[in-house]
Structure formats: C-alpha cells, structure tokens
C-alpha cells in the first residue's frame, strides 16, 4: 500500500516481468501446493484413518453381524437396528434403552447444574478484586484431576463409613450406602461430575464475562437497577453464545459418560448407572457383538445430534423473544 505512487516506468516494467513469468509462476504455485501437502501429510493421514474412515466404518459395521474369531462377518442390513427398536416395547428388559433412560436423566441434571456452577464461579471471580488469580487456580483444580482419580476419591467418600455420611451425621441425617442404592447411585455420580466439569467450564464464562461492556452495567446501575436485575437482564442475554457452547459441550460429553460408571459401579446396582457407552463397551468387548454395538453407537450419535440441535433452537428463540 505504501508503494502506490510509483512512477509509470516502474509500473510498466512490473507488468512486463509479470507477463513474462506467467508459466514459471504456475510452476511455483504447484511447488507451493506440494510443500503445503507435505506439511499436512502426517495430520491428513491420521485424520483420514482414525477419524474419517473410522466414522464411516462404524456406520458400516452397524449393518453387519460380527463376532470376531467365530464366524465371517455377515451382512444383515438394518437387522441390528430392528433388534434395538423391537426392545422398545419393554424398556425395562432392554439394557440399551435402560441405559438411554439413565443417561437422559443424567444429562438433564448435570447440564443445568454444571452450567449454573460454572457461571457462578466465573461471576464470583469477576467480582473478586484481591488475589483473583489465586482463586481462579484453586477453583480450577477439580478440572485437572483424572476421571480415574476422582472416581477413586469419591468411591471412598461415598462408602458407608465415609466422609459424606460423616458430614450428614453432623446435621443428623441418616447416611446411605450411596453407590449400592438404586435411587442414589446415579445422583452420586452426577454430583462428582458436576464438581469436575463445572470447574472446567468456568474458564469459558470468565472469557465471555470479560467481553461484557462495563458501560452497560454502569448505565443500568445509574437507572437504579439492582445487581441481580443487571445480571439477569443485561449480562445473561449477552452471555447467550457462551451459555449455548457450554451447554452443547456439556451435553455431548454427558451423553458419553463412561469412566466414572465403569470405575465406581460398573453399571450397577441393578443397571441403575448403566450408561450407553458402558453398554456399547460391554456389547462389543464382553459379548463380542461388534455390529450390534456399532448400531448402538450410531443411535447414540443421532440422539446427541438431535438434542444439540433442539438446544440451539430453544436458545435462539429465547433470544428472539426478548
């Protein structure tokens, strides 16, 4: 841009050399393309095999009956899906649909509570003037610990002689054998995951809160709005994109809950904590029914996809109304 006022002789010279170099330029273009693909080669290879091919393979598998090592794979069309849909007639007898029912309950509760917790933590930090960085570090710690370690810690807390029952005994509430109780096992896992995921999503809200213009809040304060009104009517609507992102990521992750259920209860007691991922794992690796397990995966993916779309729709219409 700075070289715009050039003399006409220089300009014409440039045109001349460009015209002359045309064939060589396309040659250079080919070399550039080649080197770009060399830079991309390792990534594209892994992407092609372990993401793209594998996803299509998974869909393809669901049309086969496969029991590794016993018989040759046999094409069965939609038979695996028919098996699963036939089980809908009695959900209580079907492990897969029981796990779907469990996970729906689980997702609704954790997505609401962990989003609220993440937002609360972020708002608290935003209003903290002293040692904000230190408190951010502290609040983020639950998000760092592996699912296996947190499961182990909470397994110990939830045992009948554990910390949870002790704290409840202080306020004279009768304790439970939390993880061996069909009513309380799933909520116990919910609590653990709200604790870790809420901390993780706090960062997203911290970033979003920084983008909320201060002047808006100040103007509202001048107009006599109280803090809660300002937060609810001004800040929350501005946070909608962040809320959608956190809820969508929470939903996608929540539907695939596996580690904690595998580690703490292995789906028990009486299938109360059986999740679709656990059922898929068992069907594939214990029953060796890879085709049926793949069909379950595809159904789970469709459910996740639809729920995420509906969520987006709901949040968008809310925006239009207000």
């Amino acid at each position, binding site marked *: 841009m700075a070289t715009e006022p050039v003399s006409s002789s220089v300009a014409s010279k440039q045109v001349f050399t460009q015209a002359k170099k045309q064939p060589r330029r396309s040659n250079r273009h080919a070399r550039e393309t080649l*080197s*770009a693909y060399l*830079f*991309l080669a*390792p*990534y594209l290879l*892994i*992407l092609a095999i*372990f*993401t793209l091919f*594998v*996803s299509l*393979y*998974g*869909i393809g*598998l669901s049309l086969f009956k496969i029991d590794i090592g016993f018989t040759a794979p046999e094409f069965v069309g939609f038979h695996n899906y028919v098996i699963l849909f036939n089980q809908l007639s009695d959900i209580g007898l079907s492990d897969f649909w029981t796990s779907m029912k469990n996970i729906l309950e689980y997702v609704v509760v954790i997505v609401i509570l962990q989003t609220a917790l993440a937002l609360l*933590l972020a708002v*608290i930090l935003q*209003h*903290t003037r002293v040692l904000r960085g230190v*408190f951010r570090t*502290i*609040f*983020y*710690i*639950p998000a*760092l*610990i*592996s*699912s*296996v*370690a947190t499961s*182990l*810690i*909470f397994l*110990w*807390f939830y*045992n009948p*002689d*554990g*910390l949870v029952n002790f704290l409840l*005994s202080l306020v004279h509430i009768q304790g439970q054998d939390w993880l061996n109780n069909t009513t309380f096992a799933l909520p116990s896992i919910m609590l653990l995951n709200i*604790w870790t995921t809420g901390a993780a999503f706090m*960062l*997203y809200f911290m970033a979003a809160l920084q983008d909320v213009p201060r002047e808006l809040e100040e103007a509202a304060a001048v107009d006599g709005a109280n803090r809660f009104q300002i937060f609810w009517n001004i800040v929350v609507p501005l946070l909608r*994109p*962040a809320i959608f*992102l956190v809820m969508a990521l929470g939903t996608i992750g929540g539907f*695939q809950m596996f*580690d904690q259920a595998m580690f703490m209860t292995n789906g028990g007691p009486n299938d109360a904590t059986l999740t679709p*991922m656990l059922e*898929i*794992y068992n069907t594939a*690796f214990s029953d060796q029914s890879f085709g049926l*397990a*793949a069909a379950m*995966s595809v159904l*789970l*993916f469709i459910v*996740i996809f639809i729920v995420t779309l509906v969520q987006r729709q709901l949040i968008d219409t809310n925006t239009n109304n207000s």
Partner: protein
Amino acid sequence: MAQLSSQIPSIDSSDLPQQNHQPGRHFRWPHIILYISLALFTITSVGPLLFTFISSFKTFQDILAFPPSLIPNPWIWSNYTQILANPIFLRWIGNSLIYAFGAMILNVIFSAMAGYALARMNFPGKKIIFTITLAVMMIPTAVTIIPKFLVVNDLHLINTYWALILPNMAQPLTVFIMVQFMKGLPKELEEAAQIDGASRWRIFYAIILPLVKPALTAVAIVTFQGAWNDFQWPLVALGSQNMYTLTLGLFNFKSAHYTQYNLLLAGSMFNIIPILILFFIFQRYFIEGATGAAVKG
C-alpha cells in the same frame, strides 16, 4: 504518541473512583456474600483433594474409621513404600510416561506443521481441510471407539505403545489452536525470507516456530494431560497387565484390593500430583489450551 499516553492515565483515573464508589454506596452485604462464597468454594475445590492427600498417610484401620479423623494417627509412609516396592506399579508409571510424552512430542510437531500450512500457505483444498478439521471435532468418541479398535487390531498394534500413540499424534483440536495462533503473525515475516530464497521448511522452523512458543506449549500441555489422564482408550487398546497405563493399573488395582483405600489413595497420588505440578508451572498455557476450543464458538 504523547497524546495517546497522556490519554490512557486519564481514562484510568476517571474509571477508578467510579469502581470504588459503586461498591461503597449500599453494597456492604454483597461483599460479605462474596467472601463467604470464596471461602466455601475454596473448601469444596481443594478440600476433597487435600483430605485425600493427608489420608494417604493413614493406616488401613484409620482410613475407614468412623468418624473419620483429619490427621493420620499414626502417620505412616508404608502405603507409598509398599506401592513403590511393586515392580508392576513402576511399570505402569513408565507406560503412562511413554504414552503421554510420545503423544505430546509427535502431536506438537504434526499440529504445528499442519497449522502452518493451513494458516499461512495458499493451495487448493485448504478451505475443505480446515472445515473438516472443525467438523470432526463434533464427532463423538461413541461412534469411533469400536471401529478404531478394529483398525488398530487389523494393524496388529493392540497391546502396544503405538496403539495408544498413533491415533493421538495429530489431533484436530490442536491443529485448530495452531492455526488460530499462526494466523495472527504479520505477513512480512515470510515475504522477506522468501525473497532471500529461504525454503518453506526453513521459514517454518527458523522464523515461525520460535514465534509461536506459547501455542506450542499450550498444545504440549493439552496433549500430555489428555494422554496422562486417559482411561477409556487404554482400556480398549491394551490387553496385558504389564502394558497398562497408570489409570488402567489403578482400575485393575481397585478390582483386586477393593477396600484397601490406604494403598489406592496413595497410588492415585502418582496420577494426580504430576498434573498439579505441571499446572502450577504452566498455568497460563493450561488455560489457553483448555479454552482453545471456545474460540470457534
């Protein structure tokens, strides 16, 4: 320049009294609520971990005593010595280190390379590759885990380190983080070097890489943490005990010594503490890496 710098303090000073004024008016009780919630969430955030750490020095009787005691009585080291005396446990730590460092080193290199091409070069197919990179992040593991196992099985890699590292050595999320960082660098950097006749590869490692060290660190940390804490994929991809990672080993250990929480909790510290140490050193990069996915939202 002089005008600009004289303006900045004036904005600051007009801003400050307002901020002090606001809470001063009638906001005494929100302050109290703020301090109470800070204290409350500090306890809920570090309390469980701290209590677990202290309790890992308790005896078997002490750790399951009711009511639980805060301080171990007696304070013992034998949980740790007993665990470390077990050669298989050291093997698990070693396996986890190989998985985490292997995935980390390769993913940093390959993500940076792919990020460089996508952010700073022009070639046909660039848009499609970038769109696919964004789109595949939405594919849940649910769909891929079984076919991924079958592919690794067909490659005869089950129960090897490559089964763990290969699928994780070039991740779409980290490629995306690199693209975001590299896009921000000024164009002149390369133009000058290109006129001097430097090759693309030379520009990449001599000019671009040193400038994106924060992004490289963020990618390294996200990858390390992901592999170190991974449970599901090692569970699927590994078969024999001596190949187990630490997370899988702890799971196995739990199944064998169900109520020996003294040993289990001590064992879990070997999984938790390295990540905490990394976090305290590289906090900034952890947070950049963790929110990397948010940028696209």
